[in-house]
């Protein structure tokens, strides 16, 4: 992981530096442009999923999810998703490295700012910052083995599988010397909160054909269309990829309050006040009666 992390970080750095030269909105060419895909596309653009169109891969994923939607209710406390599947192949199991599986689940990306505190006139204040155009609010990677051993960095770059690569596009100008500690901090902070996760060895593969992964979605979910990706790997190379959406929506009271707050803010605000005043008055009266009794 250490080595991969360093590679990823240096790429982040190149991307950031190049972006600073060209200004926002440009796609940054790679140091090895022959790979032919944008490393840090503009945050406004959808991520282009590279699809192997040249030939049908010899091994293909067939997969299912235990659920394709998650309802956020008032008592929502996280959710467990079982991702299972099999490998479809016309030929016998190839010799050599065993089949490996990587499963990623990611939340919609949001723009964010990473701040760094510095000591100025004796006090610690936010001084420098890096804007990240799009970082997923939640990102989990489950693998069947140590990620460093089973995934080639070139393929990691291409499919953006590992955590640091899941962060995209530094928005605007980068005006710090080195963005690496910033992205590291983002990954570290979100890993501490359980929002970014790498579960190595949690995908179970049976006879190089069947696999299953249990991914736990935390309680602090945001709404949106989540994306599940399943990668088949052999000898570090991605053989096939499977995409499945998961829809995360608020329901019932949660949905009603949320919509009211955004569609009718005045009514919502007055309702909040009414609740507050009623509760305050109610308690005052209740205690008066209690004291008399």
């Amino acid at each position, binding site marked *: 992981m250490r080595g991969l992390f360093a590679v990823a970080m240096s790429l982040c750095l190149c991307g950031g530096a190049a972006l600073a030269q060209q200004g926002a909105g440009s796609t940054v060419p790679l140091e090895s442009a022959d790979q032919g895909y944008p490393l840090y596309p503009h945050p406004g653009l959808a991520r282009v999923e590279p699809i192997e169109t040249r030939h049908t891969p010899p091994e293909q994923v067939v997969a299912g999810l235990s659920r394709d939607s998650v309802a956020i209710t008032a008592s929502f406390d996280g959710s467990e998703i079982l991702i299972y599947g099999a490998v479809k192949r016309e030929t016998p199991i190839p010799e050599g490295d065993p089949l490996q599986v990587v499963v990623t689940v990611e939340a919609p990306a949001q723009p*964010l700012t990473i701040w760094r505190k510095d000591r100025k006139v004796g006090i610690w*204040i936010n001084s420098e910052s890096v804007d990240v155009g799009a970082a997923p609010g939640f990102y989990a990677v489950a693998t069947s083995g140590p990620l460093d051993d089973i995934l080639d960095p070139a393929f990691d770059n291409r499919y953006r599988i590992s955590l640091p690569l899941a962060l995209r596009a530094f928005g605007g100008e980068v005006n710090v010397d080195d963005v690496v500690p910033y992205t590291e901090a983002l990954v570290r902070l979100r890993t501490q909160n359980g929002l970014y996760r790498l579960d190595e060895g949690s995908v179970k593969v049976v006879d190089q054909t069947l696999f299953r992964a249990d991914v736990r979605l935390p309680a602090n979910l945001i709404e949106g269309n989540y994306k599940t990706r399943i990668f088949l790997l052999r000898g570090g190379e991605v053989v096939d990829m499977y995409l499945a959406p998961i829809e995360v929506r608020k329901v019932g009271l949660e949905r009603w309050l949320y919509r009211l*707050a955004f569609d009718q*803010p005045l009514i919502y605000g007055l309702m909040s006040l009414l609740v507050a005043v009623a509760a305050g008055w109610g*308690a005052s009266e209740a205690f008066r009666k209690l004291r008399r009794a």
Partner: protein
Amino acid sequence: MQIYLPIAEVSVNAFTLTGLGGLVGLMSGLFGVGGGFLITPLLFFIGIPPAIAVATGANQVVASSVSGVLAHVKRKTVDFRMGGVLLAGGLVGSWMGVWVFTILQEVGQVDLVVQLCYVVFLGLIGAMMLQESLRALRRSKNPTYRKRLHQHMWVHRWPVKMKFRSSGLYISIFPPLMVGVAVGVLAAIMGVGGGFIMVPAMIYLLGMPTKVVVGTSLFQITFVTAFTTLMHAISYNTVDIMLAVLLIVGGVIGAQIGTTLGAKLRAEQLRILLALLVLLVCGKLALDLFLRPDELYSISVGER
């Protein structure tokens, strides 16, 4: 029992929140402070996004101050006329403060300014109150000392004088108006009701008797925080009603217990307690500013 908050989009323990509300409500009833200066940092601490913590904190303060002010109205310890003048200033100040807050947010220095404001004001007020109440306590043991009703300062002799009967004052309306504006500005920037500044300001700057200070301050806080809540709900959609209800349930009960308790304690003791509390919060915040933080980096979500 975990509960998912629809606006904050985080899942929290319902009992933790109710307990938090209760604690802050107790302070509110006891000292006549809204408790915002405690609730807002506590909400940050349990992982509520700052903007939502500020707005919802204001909503919770409305409930606990309504509960407290009603108890004071029954005991006739609210100076409505003074409250009205302070309120007029407070609304203007609050509006100005929200405008400043927006600018600070854009340059990413909200946390710093908020913390600095807390340290400076809490430190000054805490020290002033502690010294004054210790002196008062010493005097009360020495019955030969007779205190003047209140000190007249030159600002009190400005034009447009008004009689504040409940407070026993006949002073210009400008000093209370200015106190109102100043508290309003600070309240909006710091995301609090401003009681912890208002109470000492009323005692030391306006010379109001301690008896009516708490009730009058709660009266003003109720309206200023209601205004703030509404403004946050309309312009930023950051009031989380689910979070507010949980805090309120604890808060209103705490406020009632606090008011009852406050009637039994002596004013000087009450003031020493509040002074110590204020200094405690101040010390904690000052340490955060001057010591090297464990985590230098922080994340703020959203477009800048």
